[in-house]
């Protein structure tokens, strides 16, 4: 896990489900082949209704048309982020687009688990409705060790909730590395 992460914020609303993060029609692409996996970056967050894409103004695509990488490093959500299906393609798509962190007030269980076990975006929880305060395009800085999020555009600072037990898996890289470290897998 990187200790300091800096980049631009992309803000969305409550209950962003996995069909909004990556619409089901795109799940046919390989997550392994380079020419196909980049499609997940292209279509990440494309299921969010356009007026709610990049709040508060809306109509801001996460990934620009015909691009495969997003300019946004942080996805800022509200409650129940990642609800819906179990598709790991969802956190994969955010990572493939170049995002490194999601900060939401709460998560749906499977999405949260997938981000951690797969070693994708780091899922931090906020104490406040920060998606009502941070604006799409704000420059953010996150100290992952202490969970300090600073909005460098406004000067506002937020102390995020501790990662808890899952920090061990995030620090190991993914659940396989964690399992090997702890002797739960003995193969290579």
């Amino acid at each position, binding site marked *: 896990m990187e200790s300091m992460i800096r980049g631009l914020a992309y803000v969305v609303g409550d209950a962003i489900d996995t069909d909004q993060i990556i619409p089901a029609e795109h799940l046919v692409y390989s997550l392994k082949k380079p020419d196909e996996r980049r499609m997940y970056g292209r279509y990440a967050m494309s*299921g969010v209704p356009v007026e709610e894409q990049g709040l508060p103004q809306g109509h801001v695509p996460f990934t620009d048309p015909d691009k495969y990488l997003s300019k946004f490093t942080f996805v800022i959500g509200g409650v129940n982020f990642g609800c819906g299906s179990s598709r790991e393609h969802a956190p994969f798509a955010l990572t493939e687009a170049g995002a490194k962190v999601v900060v939401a007030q709460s998560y749906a269980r499977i999405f949260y688990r997938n981000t951690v076990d797969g070693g994708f975006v780091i899922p931090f929880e906020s104490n406040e409705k920060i998606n009502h305060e941070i604006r799409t395009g704000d420059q953010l800085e996150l100290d992952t060790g202490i969970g300090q999020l600073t909005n460098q555009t406004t000067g506002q600072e937020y102390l995020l909730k501790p990662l808890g037990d899952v920090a061990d898996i995030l620090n190991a890289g993914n659940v396989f590395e964690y399992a090997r470290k702890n002797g739960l897998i003995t193969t290579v």
Partner: protein
Amino acid sequence: MTITEKVIARHCGRQRVSPGESVWVDVDILMTHDVCGPPTIDIFKREFGEDAKVWDPEKLVILPDHYIFTQNHHANRNVRLLRAFAEEHNLPHYYDVGSPRYKGVCHMALAEEGFNRPGSLLIGTDSHTCTSGAFGMFSTGVGNTDAALIMGTGKIWLRVPETMRFVFEGTLPPYLMAKDLILAVIGDIGCDGATYRAMEFDGESVYALSMQERMTLTNMAIEAGGKNGIIAPDETTIEYVRARTDHEFECIYSDEGAHFHSEYRYDVSTLEPVVAKPHRPDNRASVIEVAGTRLDRAYVGSCTGGKLEDFQAAAEIIQGQEVVIDTYIVPATTEISESLQTETLDGRTLWDVFVNAGCKMGQASCAACLGGPPDTFGRMQGDEVVISTTNRNFPGRMGSKQASVYLASPLTVAASALSGVITDPREILV
């Protein structure tokens, strides 16, 4: 302890577990399908080696069901990848597309093929894996990484959930179905009302339900954020399971005095037909409140609304009449599809009832429940307003971000198909 806690304890070799603790458990069945199977296999090979062996071929069930009847070549390739993997590992429980073994929607197929057994622990790469909990077992959905770890080791870590208890009492009126009950619960507690928790359904009205209807309750536990849905086994459960498998199983019940996070009680005789309005499953309204809303489509299908009893209910309403909007009938499995051709209503097969009414008949699969490739049967393409027996109505779920999806029982969907507006089934059921 609750049933959920006891099943988890038995699968980690412990006498007791407590909510909140994380434990490594042994998995009895791992299920995957055509969307999540190929990436799971990729991770399995990456982590355990190209020549690695599945931990136990008897415990891996692969049921292609999502994108089956499509020309999309990437989707077709995913089925070929599953086929090759099944051959390479000599997997006994692969149900190939285009073969007589093809089943259709995985959650119903797991029940039909006897993989749902009381007291067991089943993990699937699909959020609606919670459906299997109707059989008094622990079941939940995970992503590809967790599934790949199970594929290699048979193990997964689980945080023991607290259990919420939902007690249904009274006699279910003929105009209500399990879908009305679960939509009422989700409306009450919200899409994240059960996040990280087990939802245990209990009470005389639950035990009066068939296994198919019980599966409608547990199927939608995930729509409230639940980790698993669970119903204690009874004679109905045992009879269903015994007819499907010779495998041993153990019935497990919540202890007297088990600690529940919370308890909700419902008198089902006083409930009304309900819908979930666009664009959230917890956006509940009574059918009366939204009656008259103009519709473009009706859809009966999916793991939660494409079972034989769902079609029997719809056929009772539709019988002898004509639908006035595009109405899609999609049986969940090939077994259900065959039953539509053999089960009769007043001398006509259910299949004929629907065809004569002008319905469009689909092949067993997930079809338009989750949109899918653009050529998917019944998929929304524009700003259609649809009433559907499926389980999700988030923006874009059925294929188009502009579409609006109302979720309802098969009775309500069928009544609405006849009028072209949202209609209370009580207007037709006398």
